[in-house]
């Protein structure tokens, strides 16, 4: 294990040597080459990596939606073979993940209904989630009547209304403007702190990864392995203005950036361990 999950809190999610090779008639693609990762209960971990590097693949395997071809995923001591209970998810293809025949409100409500949450509580959760993402006015609209950014917020509302124990998000803010993006980041940070959710957050945006997380995991290009893990030692209370202008913030994002840009030849667990050392000593 190369992850820095030793310090406090039990491990909720363990990804052990997970590999994935897609085999179809035309071609064979190795997307993941042995991912090792451990996430503590209540931790916020971001995953960054190049496009086509296997991030979505990893997320789907963790969600129990896709079988790994090597290794295993263990969540709360149980091996994941199907989607576990109390899992919230926001897909990269947010538009296609909404149920087209249901209104915005019904979309957010459906998982709660399935879980048999009592009606009054359900209504309160849905109202709160829709308001939190700034969509309280459009509950009766159908998804196609919304803009891309609004659809994305519906998917986010659905995930947070569910009050998951583990929240998986695949580039969930990719379609919203900078202002909304900042608001949603802060919303997510608040919810994470308030409800002790464990978050695995995939993003292309290095600043966002550093701003939100306790730890940033850098994946290499496909077939991906963990290239580096960088502990984010910024104060727990973060703020768009002061945190982002903190010199330490700039250092951390430079580190993440350097890891992403590093040529793949010298990538490997050794390098990732040394980086961890670095962040601890600085």
């Amino acid at each position, binding site marked *: 294990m190369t992850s820095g999950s030793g310090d406090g809190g039990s491990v909720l999610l363990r990804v052990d040597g997970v590999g994935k090779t897609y085999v179809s008639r035309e071609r064979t693609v190795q997307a993941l080459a042995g991912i090792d990762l451990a996430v503590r209960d209540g931790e916020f971990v971001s995953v960054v990596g190049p496009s086509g590097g296997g991030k979505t693949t990893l997320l789907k395997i963790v969600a129990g939606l896709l079988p790994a071809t090597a290794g295993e995923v263990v969540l709360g001591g149980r091996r994941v073979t199907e989607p576990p209970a109390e899992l919230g998810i926001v897909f990269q293809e947010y538009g*296609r993940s909404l*149920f*087209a025949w249901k209104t915005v409100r019904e979309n957010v409500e459906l998982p709660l209904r399935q879980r048999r949450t009592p009606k009054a509580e359900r209504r309160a959760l849905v109202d709160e989630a829709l308001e939190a993402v700034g969509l309280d006015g459009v509950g009766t609209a*159908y998804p196609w009547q919304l803009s891309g950014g609004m659809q994305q917020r519906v998917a986010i509302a659905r995930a947070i209304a569910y009050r998951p124990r583990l929240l998986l998000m695949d580039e969930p803010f990719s379609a919203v403007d900078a202002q909304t993006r900042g608001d949603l980041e802060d919303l997510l940070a608040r919810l994470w702190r308030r409800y002790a959710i464990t978050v695995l957050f995939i993003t292309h945006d290095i600043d966002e990864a550093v701003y939100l997380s306790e730890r940033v995991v850098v994946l290499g290009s496909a077939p991906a392995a963990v290239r580096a893990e960088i502990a984010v030692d910024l104060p727990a209370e973060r703020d768009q203005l002061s945190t982002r202008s903190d010199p330490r913030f700039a250092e951390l994002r430079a580190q993440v950036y350097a890891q992403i840009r590093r040529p793949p030849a010298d990538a490997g667990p050794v390098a990732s361990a040394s980086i961890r050392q670095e962040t601890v000593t600085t």
Partner: protein
Amino acid sequence: MTARRSRALAGARGVGYALGLPVVLLALWWVAGDGSANIFLPSLREILDAFGRVWFSDVFVHDVVPSLWRLAAGYGAALLAGVAAGYVIGRWAVVRALASPALAYFRVLPAPVIIPVLLVAVGIGDTTKLIVIAFGALWPILLNTADGVRGVDEVTLETAAAYRLTGWARHRLVLRAASPQIFAGARQALGVAIILMVVSEMLMSTDGLGFTVIQFQRTFAFPEMWSGVLLLGVLGFVLAKLFELVERYALRWHRGLTGRQEGSS
């Protein structure tokens, strides 16, 4: 205020477009055919006369009601069987692989050819007519349902799985996602069912609309025969409109449908 008025205007225009051509054609027929000496092509006045006489009588109970009943039962059976079989075929690749050769054969087989077979095997009763109607209407429904179910978006299914929508919830979800195609198949099947109802009654029946029309023709009652043709047209039109109402309600969420509504007004 102005929005409402313009919508009302648009509505009136829509009705005008819908009724315009038929009214003109009927008027032409009325004028041109008036005093027609050709007994095979009676005037519209005579036909309408006959229409009232023939159909607003106990013929309605004896012939129209049985026809409608057969249509409803045959079509209903095709709906149930078509959606169920189409679902299974669309959902599981193994079933699809097993069923495709047979499907390819049946989809091109003209339904009326089973009439002689059924006459021998089942006899001339209502069952035969029901089977013919159901058999013909089945294929469009089944094939469209299978296509629709197969084409349900992968991400939608993954979302459902992640939120643990399993069992019945999942079946319902898949059917709902496929419903635009299911409706397309059902609309096509409705037309087929009406045709087969008439054909089967013409070929092997002692009552029903198809039988009555043939009967009038054999007894040289041409205005009456024409009134039957008219009635069948009206029946087809009304059923298509009813279908459209149901479809509009069930697919009110659907972009294509809503777009069509807006575009056509």
